[in-house]
């Protein structure tokens, strides 16, 4: 790293307001030449917006950007590129069915007599890959190579001879350990050539492997910037999660001992390659178990593996002492497991169907298609749930798609409850729900546990987990790294555990 008076890139007081949201609030970011700068933050912290301002994909409302000491205006991605700022977005925007050559020369094909000169295009492609020391057949379709190679091709495309800064948005998200190591070698090489590299990731370990400095964003504000050597993981995670919510929510637990209640669900060595390392988990009747970890640590994956929405390739699952045969949502629902997904729009509600139809769907699926619930039965169940959960809808016949997000979330919860499960899995149950409804749902969860329901809650909200859980299983980098139970469940303990051995 060369600490000089003028930074490679200096962003000052950058703000961006989207309708109703202040995505960036006077953020400063300084990138030196020849450094890898990690940009960290939970979902919605403003990382993507900041990057898009830098690369011209989003126009800032306030602030200025300097490149090597000169104020620059970056209005479009093309202008950013002309200034020497290359970007590789999270969703690889290459075309897998086209050859590597075509992908690498898509925007500027060498021409001869107005026609594309493919021979020269091949040479250009090879030269671009050579910069990264990659030697592959450029005529093969990109899709025939591994994700890692595709990622490198994307980087090769972002690099020109005069590239001064490179932005990598979650480049390692779908890579395994070896592929990641290969990518890091290339990043180190680029760094040695004096590029300023912005590295966005959710993997804490990788930040310590490759970065020189780190900046943390939260709720659109810069929380801090520092040398990675001076920022232990615990401090980093505290910065990301924030402390202003410290006024720990009243613990609703203090309930009867559940440690001698019968085991309802037991997962042994359940796992899936690349997705989630094998884990063990026990759920007892009346017990609420929390799943905690940063984004991408495997919370949703654990929930989906247990429910059968992801097919495990190792391990086994027992329900009420009997092994589960086959794993599919259908089998799980019939066996008495219910699942409320995190992404209610994509995986939760059926927007065209009415509130009533959405509420009875899981129970109906459990009963089978021949054993239809009568209309009056459906209406009774829907009315009951609308009242119990306080779903704000003019009547049960309104299409769910027309309800507000929080009410849709309640409809999904109602659907799971109506099916009368023994095990209920909630993935981010209170995301996008107002405070009042939040409390109602937490209270309801506790009540159900009192009746013997076993509950698994995956949540990014530590306070919520502290409030509802009898035990918390902690995840990091797609591994279950431990459990905390009883009085030991505090924000600090969970954060310590997520930070892991490095603290």
């Amino acid at each position: 790293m060369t600490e000089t008076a003028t930074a490679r890139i200096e962003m000052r007081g950058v703000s961006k307001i989207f309708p109703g949201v202040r995505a960036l609030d006077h953020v400063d970011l300084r990138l030196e030449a020849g450094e890898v700068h990690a940009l960290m933050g939970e979902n919605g912290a403003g990382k993507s917006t900041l990057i898009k301002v830098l690369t011209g994909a989003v126009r800032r409302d306030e602030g200025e950007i300097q490149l090597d000491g000169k104020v620059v205006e970056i209005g479009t991605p093309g202008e950013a590129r002309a200034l020497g700022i290359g970007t590789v977005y999270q969703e690889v925007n290459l075309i897998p069915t086209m050859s590597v050559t075509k992908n690498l020369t898509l925007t500027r094909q060498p021409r001869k007599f107005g026609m594309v000169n493919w021979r020269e295009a091949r040479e250009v492609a090879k030269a671009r890959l050579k910069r990264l020391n990659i030697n592959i057949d450029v005529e093969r379709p990109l899709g025939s190579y591994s994700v890692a190679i595709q990622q490198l091709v994307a980087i090769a495309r972002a690099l020109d001879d005069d590239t001064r800064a490179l932005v990598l948005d979650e480049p390692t998200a779908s890579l395994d350990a070896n592929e990641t190591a290969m990518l890091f070698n290339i990043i180190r090489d680029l760094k040695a050539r004096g590029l300023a590299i912005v590295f966005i990731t959710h993997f804490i370990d990788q930040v310590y492997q490759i970065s020189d400095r780190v900046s943390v964003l939260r709720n659109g504000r810069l929380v801090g910037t520092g040398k990675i050597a001076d920022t232990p993981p615990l401090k980093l995670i505290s910065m990301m999660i924030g402390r202003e919510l410290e006024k720990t929510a009243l613990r609703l637990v203090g309930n009867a001992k559940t440690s001698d209640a019968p085991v309802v669900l037991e997962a042994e060595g359940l796992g899936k390659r690349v997705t989630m390392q094998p884990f063990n988990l026990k759920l007892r009747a009346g017990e609420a178990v929390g799943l905690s970890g940063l984004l991408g640590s495997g919370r949703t994956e654990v929930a989906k593996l247990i429910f059968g929405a992801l097919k495990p390739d190792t391990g086994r699952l027992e329900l009420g002492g009997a092994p589960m045969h086959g794993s599919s949502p259908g089998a799980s629902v019939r066996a008495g497991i219910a699942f409320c997904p995190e992404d209610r729009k994509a995986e939760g509600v059926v927007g065209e169907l009415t509130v009533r139809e959405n509420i009875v769907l899981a129970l109906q699926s459990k009963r089978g298609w021949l054993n239809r619930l009568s209309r009056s039965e459906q209406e009774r169940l829907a009315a009951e749930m609308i009242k119990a959960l306080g779903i704000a809808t003019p009547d049960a016949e309104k299409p769910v798609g027309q309800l507000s997000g929080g009410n849709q979330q309640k409809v999904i919860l109602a659907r799971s409850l109506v099916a009368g499960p023994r095990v209920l899995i909630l993935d981010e149950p209170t995301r996008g729900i107002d405070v009042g409804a939040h409390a109602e749902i937490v209270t309801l969860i506790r009540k159900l546990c009192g009746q013997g329901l076993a509950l698994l809650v995956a949540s990014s909200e530590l306070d919520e987990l502290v409030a509802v859980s009898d035990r918390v299983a902690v995840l990091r980098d797609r591994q279950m790294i431990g459990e905390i139970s009883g009085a030991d469940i505090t924000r600090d303990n969970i954060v310590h555990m997520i930070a892991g051995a490095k603290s």
Partner: protein
Amino acid sequence: MSQAQTTSTRSSSLGATLGAIGRHRVVWPLAALALLFIVDFIISPSFFNIRIVEGRLFGSLIDIPYRAAPTALVALGMAVVIGTKGIDLSVGSIVAIGGAVITWRIHAGDPHLLILFIALAVGLLCGLWNGFLVAALDIQPIIATLILMVSGRGIGLMINLLYGGTDPSFTSPLLQGLSTGHIGYIPTRLLVFVFIFALLWTLLRRTALGLFLESVGGNTAAAYLTGINARMVIFSAYVISGLMASSAGVILTADTHTSDPISVALNIELDAILAVVIGGASLGGGRIYLGMTILGALVIQSLTTTILTSGMPPEYNLVVKAVVVVVVLLLQSSNFRSLTLSILARRKR
């Protein structure tokens, strides 16, 4: 002051009621049908007359449902498939294959009641094939059913060759009775239609299959996570469509008592899709309106009848049909309605 308020509330609630009626899905297709009937009445004042000729009811109001019945059967199957966000282009070919098989088996001397079931089994088989391609192999419905659409009529011609193919006509009191006969004053095919409709309605609405089909069409991932076997549900939609198409095939083949794979039920898939869409369903899936689909089929047939009775050359038929369909769809589009309203409001100001 308070009086003025009451008046304004009352008028706004009246407006809301009118708005609700305008939004109700049954209104616009029904209005289109009424409009067509009025045009028919102006062209030919005897349009609404119903007489008894040779012991059966006779008149335009009987003729329209009589001719619409096969299309309506196909359209009902199509409505189910479209409800799952799919489409079945092969229905015309299924009719053609069914017709060829019927003629072939009659030439082979099978009992005609057996042939009726063989014809339905052919439709079942075609539906299983489509369902296999879409549900098991994940091929996009439009491509998957295009395969049978393209090959089906050729298969029909090949079946014709099985008995020499010289004379593809036949007589069958049973099948022709189902298609062109009458029971009492009422055409038999209308009774057949009502029977099949009742079966389908029971299958969809008295079991949970209809709800499953709609939830899979509305949001496959969500339906899957509630434990519904989405593949089986999609599979069943194509099987239903195949069966409905083959039942229409029996009526159409017996009507002409010949196997004509090249031109029988030509473009019926397009009429069926139109009927479903006029009935208010979205090609995006998620809703199945059986009754409305019949209304859609009636609108399409009335249109054809109107063009014929108006004395316009039949060449105009397709173009006029297209225009009317566009108008009905525009009326149904809430975007278009609010646009028109806002333009009108601007004029007034």
